[in-house]
């Protein structure tokens, strides 16, 4: 499939290219102050989870997704990107081993059709590949176009993850939980489910200021903050959230070992925030090394990523050699 549509556009006049941009920065959080309403305490406090009895669900599904892409050609100065997005749920049962429950993947071409020459456009439209277009205003400067293509791919991945999560929730057993790498508030079903929990590793969004911000970001290891409810932004649904520190940050970085947890906006979540936190803290072992984000990345989520990458098309990876012009013919 990939070979066929790429060959088709090249045959139609697109200039071949082979460029893998820097790896995706992952799912982005909002990078602005949004504010939050405390639901557990009058002011943001820190609470030890050491004494809490960890939740111990009989089975847990872990959901994550990946995106991989490569610029495969240019129509004029408009990049034509070949993208691959995939998501999977790996389920852990009583034997503590992870097995794939379900997965979805999608291959797509990202470009701006109107900017392409007619033969190339026709080739793309007729070869059967899903074509996603970025906005017309991004089609001029290639650097901007490539960033726009990346955003489209991220959107496609999020949609795939959401679809898979919602499908997984439908089949979730009574003692089974779903842990999602990222926010729950993008999905109605996820944000309302009693046994779905989101673990966010990036901290672009700011929910507190002043002393409360400092308290949140200097959380000691093995502690969580009070539960709060981020204020609604756009389509995001009501959700309860709190910070949790896996590893001591002193000597490293303020965000070292710090995750934000999301769960259903419901009194039950409030009641078991410490139990949930204690469970997630147990999940820090085994370490998810050699991933650089191991201090915040749960091993099962790392495992889902490894699984998805092992199944991704090999020709989307960066070539190991240099990008110097090839010699000879």
């Amino acid at each position: 499939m990939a070979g066929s549509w790429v060959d088709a556009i090249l045959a139609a006049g697109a200039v071949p290219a082979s460029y893998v941009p820097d790896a995706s920065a992952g799912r982005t959080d909002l990078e602005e102050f949004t504010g939050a309403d405390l639901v557990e305490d009058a002011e943001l406090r820190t609470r030890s989870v050491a004494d809490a009895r960890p939740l111990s669900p009989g089975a847990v599904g872990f959901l994550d997704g990946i995106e991989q892409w490569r610029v495969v050609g240019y129509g004029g100065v408009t990049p034509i990107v070949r993208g691959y997005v995939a998501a999977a749920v790996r389920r852990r049962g009583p034997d503590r081993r992870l097995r794939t429950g379900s997965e979805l993947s999608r291959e797509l071409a990202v470009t701006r059709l109107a900017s392409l020459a007619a033969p190339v456009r026709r080739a793309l439209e007729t070869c059967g590949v899903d074509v996603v277009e970025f906005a017309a205003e991004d089609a001029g400067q290639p650097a901007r176009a490539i960033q726009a293509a990346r955003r489209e791919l991220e959107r496609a991945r999020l949609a795939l993850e959401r679809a898979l999560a919602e499908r997984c929730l439908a089949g979730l057993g009574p003692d089974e939980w779903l842990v999602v790498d990222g926010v729950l508030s993008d999905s109605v079903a996820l944000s309302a489910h009693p046994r779905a929990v989101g673990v966010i590793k990036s901290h672009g969004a700011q929910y507190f200021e002043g002393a409360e911000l400092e308290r949140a970001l200097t959380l000691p290891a093995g502690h969580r903050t009070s539960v709060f409810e981020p204020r609604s932004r756009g389509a995001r649904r009501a959700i309860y959230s709190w910070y949790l520190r896996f590893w001591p940050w002193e000597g490293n970085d303020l965000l070292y070992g710090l995750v934000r947890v999301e769960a259903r906006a419901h009194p039950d979540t409030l009641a078991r925030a410490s139990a949930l936190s204690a469970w997630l803290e147990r999940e820090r072992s085994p370490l998810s090394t050699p991933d650089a984000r191991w201090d915040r990345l749960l091993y099962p989520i790392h495992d889902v990523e490894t699984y998805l990458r092992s199944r991704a098309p090999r020709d989307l990876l960066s070539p190991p050699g240099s990008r110097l012009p090839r010699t000879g013919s």
Partner: protein
Amino acid sequence: MIQHREPTPIGRVVATELKPATPHQFHFWTANETTIGIGAIVKVEGPRVGDQGPGRIVFGVVTDGFAYSDLATPLHDVVGAEGDPAKAAESPTVRQEIRLWTAAVLRQHPEEPLQPVPLGAVYVASDADVAQALRMDAYVAGAQPTGIPVGLYTAAGLEAPVYLDADFLLGPEAAHLNISGVSGLATKTSAVEFLLASIFQHFPAHKGRIAALCFNVKGPDLCFLDRPGPLDDADRRRYERLGLTPQPFARVRYYAPCKADGVNLNTLRTHPDLVGDVEPLVWGLAEVLDFAEVLLNRDDIDAKADAFIDFLSDRVLNKEFDDGFGGSHRVQSFADLDGLFRAIFDGLELSGRSDMWRTHHIATIRKVRNRLSNISTRCKGLVTDDGPSNDLPWGRFEDRTVYVVDVANVDPLGQDLVFARAVSKLREHLERRDLGVEAVVVFVDELNKYAPGDGPETYVRKMLLDISERGRYLGLVLFGAEQFRSQVHRRVVGNAGTTLFGRMDADELATPGYHVLSPAIKIKLATLPIGELMLRHPHFTQPIFVRFPRPAVLRGRDGVERFPPSADLPFEEAVVRQLVRLDRRIRPNQVKDLIAERRPDDVRRALAAVRRTRPDDALACFRRMLGVRVAPAAAPAREAVPPLNPISEEPY
């Protein structure tokens, strides 16, 4: 029986730049809970290439295994468990692990062009696959099959019979078998007993008749081959799977020297129910003198001693001989020879002539006398000073018969003599094609002792080398066993077409001869259970592990418990027993009356004569012989045994 089942892949070949697949080796992974292990035979099916039918098929044997997880460094496990090993086991998730196996290629199809192993699916080998992988399809089936069952290959819950090619085990293509293993597990002896039974049941008719000559060199190991031993259901199932009938050897002939008293047998098979089957092995001067070289140690080997022994054989033995001092001698026994020596010494002393007698120096004569009288003293019972000999049935060997010569309690010098003479006689008769069978398996245990890699050159070692290098053309096949293969002469072990390894000592496995084996194979060898062997055979490109059932014969240790050896009988009783064995009508009192006040030597001579002639009326014959001096049987004219080549590093 291996059930037909839909083939389900158990693994997949993987290859990286650092661990590539080659024409001789490949790597594959399996599920963690796989049933395969070191020594398992697997089949790789390469992908189909267009419409050219099935892809390349490769058979391999697992030689090494690896397990690892995605743990970057051990330190990360410590950090994750906060330094507490107990916590490591409590991790909610088990790390991803791999079972990665290395396999050595046994066979490829098609065999040309020889290519790297394809990155295909891996299957457990079935019966038919094992036959193909080991190239057994070429000799197990067909108009004249030559397969000899040697054991069952077992892996992944499957069992498949493994066959040796008789042409490569018993000649003429290759021959000889060598088995190594630590002592005390009874694996080596059991394996040889089982294999001999298998050979006797499956030796191809078109290859003629076969017999075995086994030297029992320690304890009661081979003393009960004709007695059934205990087998369990698993053994019986294995016999059935191998197409063998579990039964003791139908025809076994036992030979053992007498003890110094000349009437009690020097063997552990002396229980009254069994001792009747044991023939005394008694040799006289003529038998010994042919192999006098055996008796001479390195310092003795000189042209003068050789020349004098040749002189005795050619000019003196069994001839009227004038000693030059007026005496006439007819030397037929050690006693006669000693008389001659005494006459020579007395003659030289009285005449005061010189120290030379017929060009031989008196010192040389004394040395030869010393060595010859030494053997008659040290091996009294095997070598008789006087009287007739009793030997193996040269020329009358029977098909599918085991001849056991029990020399376990014989002086090492006597053991050497027995080996040398018995094997030389075999060679002689096989060369003339008048042994009675076309092939003989000679089983010699303790090759470390009889064919050491270093140490003095001995006649026995030369003889074993000779069998190893030339025996296959004659049908003379050596089955040798030893504890330390590395310490056996390399040409003896090197000429063995088939090699078996039982449990091995770790120090032995560290010697250079085992460097071709992977560490995993070595570990497996060091911990092999009783009844399992590693096997090399010319058709197999890699060593294979097989299990064999217990031999259907009584083990030596069990035999002596069930048939405890009887105490030595008083002289009279022993004579009675031997005569009664020859003629059941004889009453003990008759014999006792006859031998009362007779000299023991006279009785022994008469008894030996009766044994040799086996008359209808043994008592009458015995009575008659007691009255006369019994001369040894006139030595039949015999072709000289061709001299063995001196040991050299050049095998050709």
